């Protein structure tokens, strides 16, 4: 239909993956496992509903009070000795990080997992300025070696199997023999990264929740690289989106429980790291300085729309991609966006604009699998439809950049014709009779039918409509 240019890019990227049976197998296997593990965690439906209601309310409270909570967070962090920075754009955020690093003569930094730093394309930016950023999460390390982007926000190298990883390690790590033994591969990464940690000038991390009440940064992880990044180097820089707050410390237990169980089906991650200040007098370790960079990058614009605002409840568990039947087929890279899957399909067009990402909301069957499992109850499908609408029919909301840019006269005319027929019972009945008579004679190569019949037989128009059968069988009209 419309937006052929943009849609074709998703479609083209999807085409590559769909033809790659190995990659599709990797994704399918991984998603099946993750769905089963999550389901086991929430087998008690009443407990799930009550926990989800609590978590969703906590995040809705954050959004309702966002500006004052940001100020409270800043005040508490500052009082605790954490330096707070504000960035409207990713460029500003990159410049802030660079300035801090240059002030400390930092040449290498180790990174814990951070999707906001992906959003900033921080590594490439720092590299241009002579600073090496080393990803230390095993999955991120692997894709950094491969020169790729994450394909999943929680499990970045989920698209790779161990053979591919073994080859990468043999190529990039001195003296590393080829092995597909996962324990041995993990040990090799530990060896390499240990020395990088010990020598790093700074550590950089994301933030899962920043607690306004106490000025505490909460980070979850399984590997310990996040703790290392935020403890061993003398300088720690944390980057976060302005929406990733919790109002009170009492909100953290339910939110953590939702996050880890939804993400990987774990009751808790190995480590929950709660950072409230830099190293204090008398303490033997921990960074001397902690900086927190608050990134807007379009979030305050999204916030202006009371429906789209719900997108900002997201706690980045990734469960929506694990449960998305489209994601499971096409993988994360097909979205060509930092955030793939359902949340990416609604977040990316809002952050980057419809002109850039307008095809994403159409890469969805509106099956609601994501809505069913979202731990903070984001109405993903409704927002998806809203963004489809904004693409062709802009509202007066200023929240969506490029609204209306996918409007075409052809599509408008098609829908006007559709309306004319279906809003008029007489026209509809006449149209239906035409279809019965001539529909089955439509040439198979015509648009829509051609796509349909690529894997299916063509639908057959019945000889009589239900309207006619009902009348014949004596069913009353009134």
């Amino acid at each position, binding site marked *: 239909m419309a937006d052929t240019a943009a849609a074709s890019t998703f479609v083209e990227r999807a085409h590559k993956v769909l033809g790659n049976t190995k990659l599709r197998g990797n994704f399918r296997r991984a998603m099946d496992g993750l769905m089963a593990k999550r389901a086991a965690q929430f087998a008690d439906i009443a407990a799930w509903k009550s926990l989800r209601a609590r978590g969703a309310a906590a995040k809705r409270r954050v959004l309702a009070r966002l500006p004052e909570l940001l100020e409270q967070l800043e005040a508490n962090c500052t009082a605790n000795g954490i330096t707070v920075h504000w960035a409207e754009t990713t460029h500003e955020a990159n410049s802030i990080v660079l300035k801090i690093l240059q002030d400390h003569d930092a040449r290498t930094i180790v990174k814990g997992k951070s999707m906001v730093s992906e959003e900033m394309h921080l590594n490439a930016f720092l590299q241009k300025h002579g600073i090496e950023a080393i990803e230390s999460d095993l999955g991120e390390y692997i894709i950094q070696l491969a020169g790729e982007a994450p394909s999943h926000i929680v499990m970045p190298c989920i698209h790779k199997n161990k053979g591919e990883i073994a080859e990468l390690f043999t190529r990039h790590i001195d003296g590393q023999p080829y092995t597909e033994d996962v324990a041995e591969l993990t040990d090799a990464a530990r060896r390499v990264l240990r020395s990088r940690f010990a020598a790093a000038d700074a550590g950089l991390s994301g933030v899962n929740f920043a607690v306004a009440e106490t000025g505490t940064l909460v980070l979850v992880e399984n590997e310990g690289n996040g703790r290392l990044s935020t403890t061993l180097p003398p300088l720690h820089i944390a980057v976060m989106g302005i929406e990733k707050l919790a109002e009170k410390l009492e909100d953290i237990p339910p939110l953590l429980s939702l996050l880890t169980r939804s993400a990987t089906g774990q009751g808790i991650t190995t480590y929950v790291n709660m950072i409230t200040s830099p190293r204090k007098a008398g303490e033997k370790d921990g960074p001397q300085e902690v900086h927190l960079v608050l990134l807007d990058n379009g979030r305050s614009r999204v916030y202006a729309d009371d429906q789209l605002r719900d997108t900002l409840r997201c706690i980045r568990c990734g469960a929506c991609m694990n449960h998305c039947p489209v994601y499971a087929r096409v993988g994360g890279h097909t979205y060509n966006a930092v955030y793939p899957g359902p949340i990416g399909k609604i977040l990316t067009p809002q952050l980057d604009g419809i002109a850039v990402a307008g095809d994403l909301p159409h890469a969805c069957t509106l099956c609601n699998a994501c809505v069913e499992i979202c731990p903070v109850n984001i109405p993903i499908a409704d927002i998806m439809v809203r963004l489809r609408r904004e693409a062709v029919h802009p509202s007066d909301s200023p929240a969506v950049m490029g609204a209306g840019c996918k409007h075409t006269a052809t599509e408008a005319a098609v829908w006007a014709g559709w*309306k004319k027929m279906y809003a008029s019972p007489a026209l509809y009945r006449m149209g239906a009779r035409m279809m019965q008579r001539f529909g089955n004679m439509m040439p198979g190569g015509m648009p829509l039918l051609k796509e349909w019949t690529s894997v299916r*037989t063509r639908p057959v128009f019945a000889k*009589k409509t239900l309207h006619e059968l009902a009348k014949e069988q004596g069913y009353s009209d009134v």
Partner: protein
Amino acid sequence: MTPASAYPVPPKPDTVYYFGTCLVDLFYPDAGLAGMDLLRREGLKVVFPQNQTCCGQPARNTGMYEEARAVARTQFKAFPNPWPIIVPSGSCAGMMRMHYPDLFAGEPDQAEAEAFASRVYELTWFLVHVLDIQLKDKGEPLTVTWHGSCHSVREMGVTDEPKELLRRLSNVTLVENPREKECCGFGGTFAVRMPEVSGAMVTDKVVSIEGTGAAQMVTGDCGCLMNISGAMGKSGSPVKARHIAEFLKERTHG
């Protein structure tokens, strides 16, 4: 059995409306008629307004709200009396029950839309909870599997009701598909906007159905039915795909 869905079970009425859906009208009228026959057999007067057309879902899902509203208003006019509206499709029922209130928010006829929405019931849910239909199986022993449509399951809260009906057939063995709730890839315009992705999804769906060993697949939505049976036909699958209304009627008609 307690309904999975949030809305209350109405008392058994004397008269119901039947909304056949446009897909049933053009492609599966026998399935539509079977649903009406089941309701009539339970002693209800079934009214089929000849002025009904489409629920408006294709337009709404594409973001064409005005067009969707115009078509919805045609249904308001066609179904004026306060009788329950029975729909042999979870997807169209979901559109009318769950989305009309949002679609008409702030419109002059918002109250009418909400009242209409509250009268909409998915067929199998109605057969189980309101009519508690008893089914006397007259067919040969048969193994079937069920495909629940996404909107039926996740919008209308209809999960076990159709399977309950299948279990009430003494000669029918229901084999559950471990991937029963996974989308078949239809998604309305999605199937033609992203044909290859949709094709991959329906191909996997067919594989999972064949994996159950069932001779027939039964479903309650004609979008899924057209998609899955089309893919089965193209790949030469031995499994036969049916709409549940037609299946139930056939099994109990003798």
